[in-house]
């Protein structure tokens, strides 16, 4: 592959799309709702269940309200981009394939320090967990690498490998930038041009302005809706309500409006919804088989 002088943010995404398409992945699109990670995308959550093989890759804008730093932190932001890859079943050479993808991005592995550092991943709200690593590139966590074991509280019959690239971090690495807002998105615009103001306002909203009473109402209503929709057999709409309640929870959390006592209860509520969605999905798979 011919290497351009600077790998721009968009070039990085395009290289990943090409690489994973060549690996037989479906190149999917981001989900159009607020979510904390690509794991929440239905093409991850539902497709990891059941016995059928599945390969997918996509960008997912991700929101973590508590990570907002008013654009002051060079690494952390309350909204950022993940590149999500699911390989199901996980191939035996999955680590090697992953490392090849880094090389395709222009990272010379001989010159850098790559580590697979233990990370036991868990999403208490999705009832999902897996074992794997944070991948460190010269100490920078650039990818979350997980072998899913359970999703929606269900033991998976076929193990998926989930690769979640932190796009900004890899771009910073490639471009030698100290600050994510200085990243070149293309040859004219920076990441900051597009997102700095949004990040400042988003942080102010998350930490100062978000109406916690309103978020609590959203949370409860979405929660009730999810239940109703599941009873009506509408699995994806029910799951979307779960996404809404999960985001409302995160906002309440950022505002410090979740007490230590109620925290486990609220999380368990979302997890139960996720579990019911997963069970309903598997039930439908069986019916359609």
């Amino acid at each position, binding site marked *: 592959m011919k290497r351009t002088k600077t790998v721009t943010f968009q070039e990085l995404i395009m290289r990943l799309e090409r690489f994973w398409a060549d690996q037989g992945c479906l190149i999917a699109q981001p989900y159009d709702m607020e979510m904390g990670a690509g794991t929440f995308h239905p093409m991850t959550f539902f497709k990891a269940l059941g016995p059928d093989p599945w390969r997918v890759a996509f960008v997912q804008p991700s929101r973590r309200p508590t990570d907002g*730093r008013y654009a*002051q*932190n*060079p*690494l*952390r932001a309350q909204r950022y981009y993940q590149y999500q890859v699911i390989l199901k*079943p*996980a191939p*035996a050479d999955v*680590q090697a394939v992953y490392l090849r993808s880094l090389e395709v991005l222009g990272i*010379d592995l*001989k*010159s*850098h*320090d*790559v*580590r*697979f*550092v*233990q990370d*036991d991943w868990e999403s208490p709200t999705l009832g999902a967990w*897996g*074992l794997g*690593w944070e991948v460190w*590139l*010269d*100490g*920078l966590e650039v990818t979350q690498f997980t*072998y899913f*074991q359970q999703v929606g509280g269900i033991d998976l019959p*076929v*193990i998926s490998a989930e690769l979640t690239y932190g796009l900004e971090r890899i771009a910073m*690495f490639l471009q030698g930038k*100290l600050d994510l807002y200085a990243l070149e998105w293309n040859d004219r615009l920076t990441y900051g041009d597009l997102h700095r103001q949004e990040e400042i306002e988003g942080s102010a909203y998350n930490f100062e302005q978000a109406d916690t009473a309103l978020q609590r109402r959203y949370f409860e209503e979405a929660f009730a809706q999810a239940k109703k929709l599941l009873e009506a057999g509408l699995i994806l709409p029910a799951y979307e309500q779960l996404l809404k309640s999960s985001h409302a929870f995160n906002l309440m959390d950022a505002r410090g409006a979740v*007490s*230590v*006592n109620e925290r486990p209860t609220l999380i368990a509520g979302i997890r139960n919804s996720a579990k019911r969605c997963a069970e309903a999905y598997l039930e439908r798979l069986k019916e359609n088989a």
Partner: protein
Amino acid sequence: MPARASEGLRTHPPARRPASDDFLLEIGCEELPADYLPLALNWGESGGGLPFSAACAFSGNKIGWQEIWTYGTPRRLVLWVKGVEPVINKSEEGPPVQIAFDSQGKPTRAAESFAQRHGLKISQLKRKQTAKGERLCAEYDVPVTKILTDLIPVIIKGIGFPKTMRWDESGVRFARPIRWLLALYGSKPVSVLFGRIKSGKTTYGTRRCGGKAVVISTPASYFPTLTRLKVHLEEGLHYKSKGDSFEPLPSHPRKREELLKRLAAAAKRCAGRLADETTEEFGWLLSTSTFLAEEPVVEAGSFRKEYLELPPEVLATSMAKHLKLFSVHSPNGEKLLNRFLAVLEGKPAKAAAVVANIERILEARFVDARFFYQADTKGSLEGKVPHLQKVVFHEKLGTVGERIPRLERLMKNLAGQLSIADPTRWELERVARVAKADLVTQMVREFPSLQGIIGGHYAKVGGDPVDVTEAIAQQYQPRTANDPIPSTALGTLVSLADRLDTLIGYFGVGLKPTGSADPYSLRRQAMGLVRILIDPPPEGISFVGLSIDRLFDEGIQSWGSRMTIDPKTLKKELHVFLEERFEWLAFVRDGIPRELIAAVLTAGSDDSEITSGAASSSRSHDLAGAWERLKILQKFWTDPKRKPVLIKAAKVAERTGRIVKAAKETDGFGKINPEAFKESSEKKLWAVWNQVAPKVQEQVKRRQYREAITSYSALYPEVHEFFETVFVMDENLEVRKNRLAFMKEIFQSLSNGFADLSKLPLAGIEPS
């Protein structure tokens, strides 16, 4: 018995056995967690690590072996079994001889199929007398390689990990996916299937070397090959076979030691030194670094000096926890330098570029820490106190804010009992008030392990005097078994009060630890409390004579209506809980014999003299006093010059104590009437006693226990003579009661105030 058949049964000729050989197993993995490797190479998690699993598998299957050696890196676990016997003789009983041969002596179908099953001819079968009559018996040799084929999966499954996972459709579990198996017996490959992995003769180099594949011909050539591939193995536990059992051989964490040496040298090159190597944090970082690289390479880097304005603990914790970097301290250890040491996997082509990258990431972390620091120090520590009313301590125990007045009461009770003038009332109240305020800071939310330390820094920023800031910083000490106890009076008071309040609260609502479940770490809390009481205290403080019982009263009162357990039961449970920690520290940590501990803890247990077991006695409520007495007792017990004195004193206690105990359940005791003593030895003892008693009483009172033991031992000849000549249990009740009262007085004079010496292991020991 048919003659022909027995002719056909030959004994097995004693074949010359080939020499034993070494067995090598390499389990090639995707990166194993650094925290799991020390477990897998040593005692393992619930069930044992690789060494134990292997030793059990070999010995359990009667395979002769000499030594087991184990090694590991993030990408491999290695088992090297030396001197494995090549052929294992097996025997299996078959059908009874009557059934195996017909009346003509011809083998039946039963005999034929039994022989066939073992690939033997009828003529090769033996006969064996068993409990169920004479039976055919197949004796046959199995090459060890064949047994190993079945055994290797058992060994692998026998390694216990905190968490395991599945990775392919075979469903086998391990800490991380296994990607290759190398199994050799001598130069012969051992064929194994584990999940979907087939064994072979190939090993692979480090990722830095591009995972180069190399065929291994023998176990002996494996280790030099790995050295060439730059794979540094860490040693695990070794075992030596002892026939049916096995015992550990000393092993050396060579890789860890080598890395420490290189880190220390690198720190020196930075004109500094490493952090305190004895702390738990340092131990963790060193172990993690050892097990996070196959070929550890140390590189030094630096950060901008302006970040040194942040608390050094924040910088060090941020470096260690987030990036696994070693901090570098000034040669006297007082200051942090703006340097760090990174441990990399192999030497990268552009090491400087790697370090520069790490520096950038570290800077981002420090920016984050500064963000917290600035946000936290915008307001005063005092201003954070009201927020503690919203921090739940435990749902049954209210909020952290509610703890403040209780901590203050306990601290005042302590200061009163210890009659220390320093700290002042203001300082004491101030510490109680703001000690917990850092729990609502962003910094502690980010680095929970720095609670207290952060509070101390923020108090300093806010202008609090050094006594107060140090006490806040020390309030959680000792955090771990090796952590020092608080070094200041005020720090000691707040740490004790914190632990007392916590223990009383949890026990008071029935949340005490059960079995191995201790979700609130109450054992650790209590251990720290006892350590503060018994370990050398800060200058000007002595805990001897401190009544823990009174502290419990104060604490229970201050908890008020939240307590659901009645105070008497609660206090008893708490006393027992603390005594158990006391016993643990004395026995496990300091190696003091249990009998000595029991002697001290049961001293003066209610007035019940010699009740057995660890009773909560009023003397044992003074744990510092008990410790002081225990150390003296231990000194006498272990000092060959002093031991004879102690034995004499103990014999006095044993003989008098035994008879008093027997009488307690029957007659009771009278008042001593010296006029009623008849026998000469009795009168003699009484005369001596009248000289000794006041001395012992006075010496015990003055805590001159050494002297008290010596005084008491002087009774031995008369006591001995007394028991040789006088029958205490006289028929006459009055005589009997009089003698018993005397014995009781002698016994209790030392057992109440010092230790019940009759508890010492005296069997077979006579005074010289």
